[in-house]
């Protein structure tokens, strides 16, 4: 049966906002796996770390699998040590940097979308290392996803809702946009809970900045492609938390996955939840990521 997952929260929400979202997910959402933890910037986690135990308890009590996500870019010892500690815990860990993969070798773990799994040979290697679920990079076309999903002896997960992470950097573009330096950033990223809009000179939208991460402005919405992806062997479908009612988003995706709702109707319902944000599905269609094909 197809599983629905909630990806790690990429944005810097107020701790209470974060906790409340997870409580609702635990209590109300038809989600099977929830990814927790900081992927973007190690400076942020101390601000909400204290809430994690109760979030984990609530999710576990609701029968949802909890996955600890880790940083996409690890550069300091402090970060390495924190992750090494996490890898020693009982919960399953998502590796987003090769260092984490190295720490998790031999133990069941999940590889995140920031690990470049573009072909069968790399996938096989990661499975031999202990990966039990593989997240494919957002850039892959439907054809490539199908090839890899069919080949994959373990679980395959892809992103089907939310802003697509396009790049990561050491430089904090959020700070730069606000005229401050990363070391004394005052957590300006908290000002933009859905990412800071970075538009073209013409005013047309293009990207969203989130700390050191750059994301698509459009939400990837892969409702019409769900059936084909299921048929190809994708087992897990990831929703990335955005400023939208994620419980209702999950309900829509669950219904379409189960065949209780057709994709077009699902999309219409989704539009009510996502305001003015445009949708994109270019990558899965083998085109430029920012394209939207509604056929």
């Amino acid at each position, binding site marked *: 049966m197809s599983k629905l997952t909630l990806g790690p929260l990429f944005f810097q929400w107020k701790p209470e906002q974060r906790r409340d979202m997870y409580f609702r997910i635990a209590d109300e959402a038809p989600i099977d796996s929830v990814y927790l933890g900081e992927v973007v910037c190690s400076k942020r986690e101390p601000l909400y770390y204290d809430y994690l135990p109760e979030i984990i308890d609530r999710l576990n009590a609701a029968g949802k699998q909890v996955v600890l996500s880790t940083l996409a*870019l*690890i*550069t*300091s010892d402090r*970060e*390495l040590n924190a992750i090494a500690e996490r890898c020693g815990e009982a919960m399953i860990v998502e590796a987003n*940097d*090769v*260092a984490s*993969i*190295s*720490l998790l070798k031999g133990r069941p773990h999940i590889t995140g979308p*920031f690990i*470049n799994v*573009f*072909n069968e*040979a*790399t*996938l096989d*290697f990661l499975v031999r290392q202990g990966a039990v679920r593989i997240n494919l*990079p*957002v*850039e*892959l076309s439907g054809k*490539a996803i199908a*090839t*890899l999903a069919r*080949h994959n002896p373990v679980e395959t997960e892809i992103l089907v809702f939310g802003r*697509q992470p*396009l*790049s*990561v*950097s*050491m*430089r*904090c*573009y959020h*700070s*730069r*946009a606000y005229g401050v*330096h*990363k*070391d004394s950033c005052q957590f300006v990223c908290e000002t933009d809970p859905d990412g*800071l*809009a*970075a*538009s*073209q*000179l*013409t005013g*047309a939208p*293009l*990207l969203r*900045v989130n700390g050191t991460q*750059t994301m*698509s402005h459009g939400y990837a919405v892969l409702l019409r492609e769900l059936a084909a992806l299921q048929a190809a062997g994708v087992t897990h479908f990831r929703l990335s938390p955005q400023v939208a009612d994620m419980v209702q988003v999950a309900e829509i995706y669950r219904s379409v996955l189960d065949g209780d709702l057709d994709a077009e109707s699902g999309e219409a319902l989704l539009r009510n939840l996502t305001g003015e944000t445009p949708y994109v599905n*270019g990558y899965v269609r083998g085109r*430029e*990521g*920012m394209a939207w094909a509604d056929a």
Partner: protein
Amino acid sequence: MRDIAYLELVCPAGTPAALRTAIDAGADTVYCGFRDCTNARNYPGLNFDAKELREGVAYAHARGRWVIVAINTFPRAGDIGPWHRAIDTAAECGADAVILADIGLLDYAMRKHPNLRRHLSVQAAASNPLSIDFYRETFGISRVVLPRVLEVDEVATLISRMKVEAEVFAFGSVGTMVEGRCTLSSYITGRSPSSDGVCAPAEFVHYREDGAFMESCLGDVVTNRYAKNENAAYPTPCKCRLVTNDNASYLFEEPVGLNAVSILPQLKAAGVTALKIEGRQRSRAYVGQVVTAFRAVLDALARGETMPQAAADLHAIAEGGRETLSALKKGWK
């Protein structure tokens, strides 16, 4: 054993003619790619076939230099053949090393050609000692090209914990994102450095004169506007002007070129052993000028001089006439 003065000078060769130019100008090592998407400079008219590589290797070896082959993109699902053939061909032609990024490819190269030196591409984004050690232990890499996002102190710390050679970019175009994991180009054009070996390919680039302005466009995206006498730049996505909070700026990075010539002594002190010049897509003339200048600088430093005159030539050549130490300098983040 080669006779390296101060630091190994690793230079780009987009064509056989550029390879000869680089060697003649004093490169210790040249790096090149094949004429397909197995390397991250897959541009029309550029790169080598097997015959040209063989000839290039002969030319270099006759002069005591090295040729290394970049096979640094990520092979496509269901189509790994071209990449395996590229590695096999590089080995047959006598290349001194291959530069790889993909885990599956590193595995293949190690098993099939254990004696072919393996360098870890910057596209593998190995940014900490654990990652680098993982690649060394698992795939026997001898050298890592460090990401262009580290400060000199960080480079020093990293190198002190590494057991492989460190190569650092010293001149040329710099992207500001972690390489090998940037999909900005494919978001806009459908083509990416990781999969297709191109960033912002020229077929999606056009310029429009609009009265007193010139607009540069990548696909449907307007990347910049230039006033009449303002220098234009190539519209890679990380160098475009974007608007945030009603303020237009070079959000990611100014369109300047990296020039680390002023900190070569610090890089050497940090343990760096090789300098990489970026620019396989640049002209032979450019390669000749840059390599000549760097050769003069390195020879002077080897003799114990402090800031050689040749360094001044490099300032003039740096991209757009504006240059930066980029991430190497404190405060870049």
